[in-house]
């Protein structure tokens, strides 16, 4: 996978036999144990491992929950209560799965902002970045489908509203949108047919995600990791083997992350959810505030920022779509924002804009919240399609270090004492 030469030598009869038939140990050795990794990766780089952990947790708990869940409009809500009350440790497994979705998104957002900050999408890592955006999109689809399954009020009305996005296409070709809508729901409203297909797809998509994650890691291992300086690895003095150096660092970070996860699961399991989802779905009554899960709020704010239905839907999908083009929107010669004083300011503003959009998405779409949503939406798009290319051309970056090894020495204040190796 790494494309480089292998560092593995089988030592005994069995490993030699295995290596000439299925070089499993060789692949593990070259891609995990001895994979040369830049030695200056900071804690922001541990989120790849944390995300792998999250995916594994969601897969395992999800498979277990599927052993008890009933996908039917009549019985879904009751089956969740059965899991919560009667299944051995059912409450634990469900709370882990439920909060696991939030933890997964928390980690993926950190991972994405880290990628944006250090220019990890720039050549030769464009495919790596695009695969990441695909994973993110699949995660959103999976999370949305999963949220409909408990068949509470938010499940039902979330499903109704989201599937209704597609009715916006009636503005393009009359009848197209409503046709797609009925096809998606398999009925005239969200009901039994919908919950069954949502469950089937919610079970399928995580395995698709796992497949794309495999490609993502493959695409990472061809050029190797980016790093906080954004400059290329020049030789062995710049790297350490992945194991034990990064297994232990990732392990430590994952343990800390698990503590945050555990605080939610054991002490505030419903904090990130919405009380209305403990009310069984009622097609005749819409809850007073329909709010998506927190990780969708920025996109929800973008959807509601414009008064036109079709434009809102297109902007919302465009907000994800624009991410695919980021590798070609950034015209800077330098990868890392650490050496780009101007871009760095705009990046901080971008993070603030995303948080502000998230806040606005939780408010009723009126007054100050609407204004903030509009400003945030404007900045979100301007950041990608104007600031990124223009600042990239115009800004004068700071002087880059000669190598990762020298950058590390300089940072630790040894530069003057030990000039070179």
């Amino acid at each position: 996978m790494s494309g480089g030469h292998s560092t593995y030598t089988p030592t005994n009869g069995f490993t030699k036999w295995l290596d000439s038939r299925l070089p499993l140990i060789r692949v593990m050795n070259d891609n995990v144990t001895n994979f040369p990794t830049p030695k200056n990766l900071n804690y922001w780089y541990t989120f790849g491992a944390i995300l792998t952990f999250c995916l594994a947790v969601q897969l395992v708990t999800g498979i277990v929950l599927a052993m008890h869940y009933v996908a039917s409009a009549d019985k879904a809500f009751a089956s969740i209560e059965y899991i919560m009350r009667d299944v051995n440790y059912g409450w634990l497994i469900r709370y882990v799965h439920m909060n696991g979705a939030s933890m997964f998104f928390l980690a993926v957002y950190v991972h994405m902002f880290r990628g944006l900050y250090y220019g990890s999408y720039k050549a030769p890592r464009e495919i790596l970045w695009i695969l990441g955006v695909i994973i993110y999109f699949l995660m959103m689809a999976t999370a949305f489908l999963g949220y409909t399954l408990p068949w509470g009020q938010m499940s039902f009305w979330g499903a109704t509203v989201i599937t209704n996005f597609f009715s916006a296409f009636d503005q393009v070709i009359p009848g197209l949108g409503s046709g797609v809508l009925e096809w998606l729901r398999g009925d005239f409203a969200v009901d039994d047919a919908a919950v069954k297909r949502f469950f089937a797809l919610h079970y399928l998509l995580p395995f698709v995600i796992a497949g794309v994650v495999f490609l993502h890691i493959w695409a990472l291992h061809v050029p190797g990791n980016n790093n906080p300086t954004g400059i290329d690895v020049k030789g062995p003095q710049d790297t350490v083997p992945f194991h034990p150096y990064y297994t232990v660092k990732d392990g430590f970070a994952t343990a800390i992350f698990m503590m945050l996860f555990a605080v939610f699961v054991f002490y505030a399991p419903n904090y990130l959810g919405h009380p209305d989802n403990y009310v069984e779905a009622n097609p005749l009554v819409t809850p007073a505030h329909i709010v998506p899960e927190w990780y969708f709020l920025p996109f929800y704010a973008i959807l509601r920022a414009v008064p036109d239905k079709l434009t809102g839907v297109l902007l919302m999908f465009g907000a994800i779509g624009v991410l695919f083009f980021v590798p070609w929107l950034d015209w800077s010669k330098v990868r890392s924002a650490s050496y780009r004083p101007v871009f760095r300011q705009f990046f901080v503003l971008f993070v603030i804009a995303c948080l502000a959009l998230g806040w606005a998405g939780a408010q009723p779409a009126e007054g100050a919240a609407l204004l903030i949503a509009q400003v945030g939406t404007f900045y979100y798009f301007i950041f990608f399609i104007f600031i990124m290319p223009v600042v990239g051309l115009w800004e004068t970056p700071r002087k880059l270090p000669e190598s990762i090894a020298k950058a590390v020495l300089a940072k630790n204040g040894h530069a003057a004492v030990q000039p070179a190796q």
Partner: protein
Amino acid sequence: MKIRSMLATAGLLLAALAAPALASESEVALKTAEWSFDGPFGTYDAAQIRRGFQVYKDVCAACHSLKYVSYRNLSGPQGPFHTPADPKLGEDAVKALIDGIEVPDLDDAGEPITRQARLSDPFRSPFANEKAARAANNGANPPDLSVMVKARAGGADYLYSILTGYEEAPGDVVMQPGMSYNRFFAGHQIGMPQPIVSDDQVTYTEPGAPKASVDQMARDVTAFLAWASEPHMEERKRMGLSVLLFLAFLAALLYLSYQRIWADVEH
């Protein structure tokens, strides 16, 4: 990227997480009570839940179902009647309390009958179906209470506020027929007539029980419903403490390993 900036970012993200919770505050500030189950170490007060069950049985059960809770839950390991030394005692106590409660069933000839409720039965629902419930309640459907404390923003405080929030309607409010005025209900017009009306409406028989004042009964039944919504809460908090202690220990070990492994590498 040092610890300080990591913390700052973590703070920002947590603030973003907090936004949805802050978004849905009701217009009137709820009454707050001190609940034994509040906080990371809070536990249920079994005696209070037993009293609350009595209030539910004598007052609420006339209209509200509790269909996801079974009688066995009362005497089971998470229940207020549980007797760890000899589970049979708790089971007998619950059997005595539900004596006379008739639940629908079919006889051997397939005819609908009612029979004495067993421990394995879910709580009896007062109405056969939603239409029957609406017909008997001025068109309103009394909601199931099994997860009510989790189903309302404010949780236990909300329920307690509603139960004690009935008032004379202000002069300028035109009341819809059959509605009652409640200070804490959205729109203030609630279909449920004041359920707990007077002191000693329910007779507390357990030795050492407090006086059955309106306020006390409202608190007790709320505590009972909090337990019904989340029967595994005590187990959850206990397990959480062990998990966090374990993870802290593991994280400390991994940090020491990390420092030693990286000791000879400039990074």
